């Protein structure tokens, strides 16, 4: 922890960065993401097991956008998000100083993107057993059961868009759901609108989701919607050997093809 603080303090003191993105103590024994702009404030910077939020999200916020340099305390999920954002031309390497934190909570020092790629590869990734189990459970259902399962699962959705707001990959200035000419997705949070919204989100994240689970965590009504993009990222890895968050230059399974892509379903 002290090592993280030391790095952060130095970066701010030397004016290499204007903002350090990390966590501070919140109310009621909780932690909350925080922007640190002064070296003396770094005392408040913390990192512990409770700091699970994917703060890569804030890199696209104004405070970071306007800063010349940004440092970020980055767990493996955050590192993967940063790499994917870079692959999608949303952030540049010169600006971001990654203070790596391994999955065991140890400081991995400052990582440039190349090191981050290595870091990303060595950190445990892939689906958690409970997510896998849920996917398998759903896959074992009949077609009708699956449909009913999801309609039911989405029915409490109130279209608060917390899933979108918490997802570092949902960075579009104008989300498609807000397009009304044509009205691709019905705005109302009825069954149809909910199914189509979550379906579109899953498709948009196909091959881009880095499996942080932030969408699920932020959902006030506990929809297991992360499962959709998890399932697809697993599928895309199997099918196209492509995985998000490992590479800082362009990768996207859906913006590529091979001549031998499976076509047994095409007549």
């Amino acid at each position, binding site marked *: 922890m002290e090592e993280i603080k030391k790095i952060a303090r130095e970066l701010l003191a030397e004016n290499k960065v204007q903002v350090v993105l990390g966590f501070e103590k919140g109310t009621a024994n909780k932690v909350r993401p925080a922007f640190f702009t002064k070296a003396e404030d770094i005392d408040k910077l913390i990192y512990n097991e409770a700091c699970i939020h994917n703060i890569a999200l804030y890199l696209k916020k104004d405070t970071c956008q306007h800063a010349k340099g940004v440092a970020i305390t980055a767990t493996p999920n955050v590192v993967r998000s940063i790499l994917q954002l870079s692959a999608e031309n949303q952030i540049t390497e010169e600006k971001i100083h990654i203070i790596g934190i391994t999955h065991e909570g140890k400081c991995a020092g400052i990582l440039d993107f190349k090191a981050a790629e290595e870091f990303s590869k060595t950190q445990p990734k892939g689906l958690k057993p409970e997510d896998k189990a849920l996917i398998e459970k759903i896959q074992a259902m009949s077609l009708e*059961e699956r449909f009913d399962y999801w309609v039911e699962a989405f029915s409490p959705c109130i279209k608060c868009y917390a899933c979108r707001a918490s997802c570092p990959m949902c960075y579009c200035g104008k989300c498609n759901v807000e397009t009304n000419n044509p009205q*691709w997705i019905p705005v109302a949070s009825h069954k149809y609108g909910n199914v189509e919204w979550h*379906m579109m989100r899953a498709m948009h994240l196909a091959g881009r989701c880095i499996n942080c689970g932030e969408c699920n965590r932020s959902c006030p009504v506990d929809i297991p919607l992360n499962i*959709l993009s998890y399932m697809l990222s697993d599928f895309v890895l199997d099918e196209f050997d492509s995985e998000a968050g490992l590479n800082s230059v362009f990768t996207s399974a859906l913006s590529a093809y091979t001549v031998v892509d499976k076509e047994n*379903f095409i*007549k």
Partner: protein
Amino acid sequence: MSEFQPKIVAFVCNWCTYAGADLTGTSRIKYSPNVRIVRFPCTGRIDYMLLTKAFASGADGIIVSGCHPNDCHYTSGNFYARRRWIVFKKLCDFMGIDTRRIVFSWVSAAEGSKWADIVNTTNEEIIKLGPYDSYHKLSTQDILE
């Protein structure tokens, strides 16, 4: 007519399947009138959201068709489309959306009879499956509520 006549929407590319369907016409090969063709420049242009939109609006079956691999008028549009279909189909399957109702095919400008076959077999298959009530209801029922 008491027999169920499904609504089938065909999303086709202009260069191969649309031309192939033209050839079906010039060859006077008969097929079911239950299909409505929507012309796109290329399969690469076909948005998967139009597919769910079609189901929601009352389609019972969908045909998506374009040029054979390597024959795309724009070289590679169909390859990107194919990849998108693979992923979309997987997602639909996972979400319980009936992918037997979405027929993907390659029909070239020379395959007039194949086009008639695709339409007819899809029509028969959809008649067997019946109307896609579960999805239609999704869009109508809840809105009325």
